[in-house]
């Protein structure tokens, strides 16, 4: 089964800086990788999907890269704001079904004003 590791359980950065979160996976290379945001007491919310043939994907202040050689994805939030404070999860399709997802443990980001 797929194993996913996300860097550090918690990341604190200053407002205005760029936050960079890491997601590493083992075993098979997935067709795509996703990033979700989860706020306390809420379910995860889908942010971005990047496919194996895409090196980079952007959405507003978010940027995701996908390196299938390194088996790694980087998630960047530029010009970070306190409202970006949340837990960010990466997810990959499970080997048994493309519709099932395996989630990383998440990185809790705190943007300090």
């Amino acid at each position, binding site marked *: 089964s797929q194993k996913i590791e996300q860097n550090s359980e918690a990341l604190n950065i200053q407002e205005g800086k760029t936050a960079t979160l890491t997601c590493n996976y083992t075993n098979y290379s997935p067709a795509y990788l996703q990033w979700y945001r989860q706020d306390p007491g809420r*379910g995860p919310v889908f942010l971005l999907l990047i496919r194996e043939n895409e090196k980079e994907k952007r959405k507003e202040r978010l940027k995701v890269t996908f390196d299938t050689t390194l088996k790694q994805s980087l998630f960047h939030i530029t010009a970070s704001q306190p409202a970006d404070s949340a837990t960010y999860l990466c997810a990959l399709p*499970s080997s048994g079904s493309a519709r*099932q*997802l395996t989630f990383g*443990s998440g990185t809790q980001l705190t943007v300090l004003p």
Partner: protein
Amino acid sequence: SAVISQKPSRDICQRGTSLTIQCQVDSQVTMMFWYRQQPGQSLTLIATANQGSEATYESGFVIDKFPISRPNLTFSTLTVSNMSPEDSSIYLCSVPGTGNTEAFFGQGTRLTVV
């Protein structure tokens, strides 16, 4: 996107009792997924609820402990049976998006067993 209503949002239950969690989707979906998120942990898939057939359970989860119903394409329930404090978790239902890639989640049910 799909809008998912999940209830209750939270509950405190006595050990040995059972709790049924409901999940209502605003559109018809073939698959619905139930996840558990233990404190400080990520999401773990419990089972896939298929309409018209038995749910498919992941390793470590059994039907007697987590019976699931899926009476139609917009609704599912998960029951946590004979609860113990170890069952204290957030339980989430989820459906795939129209692209069958991204997932949409309910707001979760925070269960505390005392």
